[in-house]
């Protein structure tokens, strides 16, 4: 089970690194995309965007420091739950704004993002609940590599889903 924890930590940390970096690179664009997704007062848009980016940047840091990994999982879970709720509300209201989850995107938010975020939140919960043991280095490396592959797939989730959605 300690491998599960290491793998989940690697996956969640890398996903949040990708997410935070992409948002920092185009912070203004991200801030502008917020009102279309969530109901926020105009004055609070930039602070909210700032809070989201900082929280996303802190999560991977917490996850890779063994004593506080559990907090990293908890923060990641809370963020994912918040994003999922925001997307669910936006989808229910029929607002098909593009998701700036991983940088500039033209894909409007939809059920697929709910599936993706729920899966990620599940991984965060699984990692957080797994026993806290540091596995041997070789095992750690394999688990981290598995997390890396998972993270690559999650970050390019839109592209992959689109490929199959289009051909059918």
């Amino acid at each position, binding site marked *: 089970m300690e491998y599960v924890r290491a793998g989940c930590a690697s996956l969640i940390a890398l996903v949040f690194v990708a997410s935070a970096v992409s948002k920092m690179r185009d912070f203004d664009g991200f801030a*502008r995309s917020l009102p279309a997704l969530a109901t926020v007062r105009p004055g609070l848009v930039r602070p909210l965007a700032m809070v989201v980016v900082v929280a996303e940047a802190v999560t991977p840091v917490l996850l890779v420091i063994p004593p506080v990994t559990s907090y990293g999982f908890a923060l990641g879970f809370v963020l994912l739950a918040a994003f999922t709720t925001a997307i669910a509300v936006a989808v229910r209201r029929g607002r098909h*704004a593009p998701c700036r989850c991983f940088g500039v995107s033209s894909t409007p938010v939809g059920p697929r993002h709910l599936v993706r975020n729920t899966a990620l939140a599940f991984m965060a919960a699984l990692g957080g609940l797994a026993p806290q043991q540091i596995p041997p280095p070789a095992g750690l490396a394999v688990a981290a*590599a598995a997390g890396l592959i998972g993270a690559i797939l999650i970050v390019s989730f839109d592209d992959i889903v689109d490929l199959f959605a289009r051909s059918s």
Partner: protein
Amino acid sequence: MPYLAAAVVLLGVLCVLNLLLTIGILRRMRAQGDRSGRHPGPLFALGPGSPIGEFAAVTTTGEPVSHDTLTGTVGFFSAACEACHVMLPRFVEHARQAGRENMLAVVGGADAELVETLTPVARVVVADLDGGPVARAFQNTWTPALYLVGDDHRVAAAAATIEELPTLTYDRVAGRG
């Protein structure tokens, strides 16, 4: 044993590289699909000479606008539209030259910043994300989009950028030199 481990590592690295390459190709394909597939046909349903549909709207300052009274430049903007924000300074400059009464900006979605920037130089109609009645009258589905409406209330030109808009025609239409 060490050879086996090395071989597995090598294979693993190769697989990840392969995955990245595949995703790269996927992205490229998708970007091309966005350009050609999602917007079939011309960007603008109304070309030069087409009459605009009927509509009535009220601007942010309370002035009524309708298909009967509209002349000059009409710009469609929407929230979270990158190209709109890029075009905005040129649009504002153009609006200063043309005069407020010759400019109509339609802002789709909630974007207070955009409305604030446009209000001093143009009449602004705030609509839903789809553009509302004005966008329907122009059959416009794309932002940013610019239309030049002549005195006969027909479209004189349609363009995606200020530079593409024929300024000479515009000056004649607006009665300014």
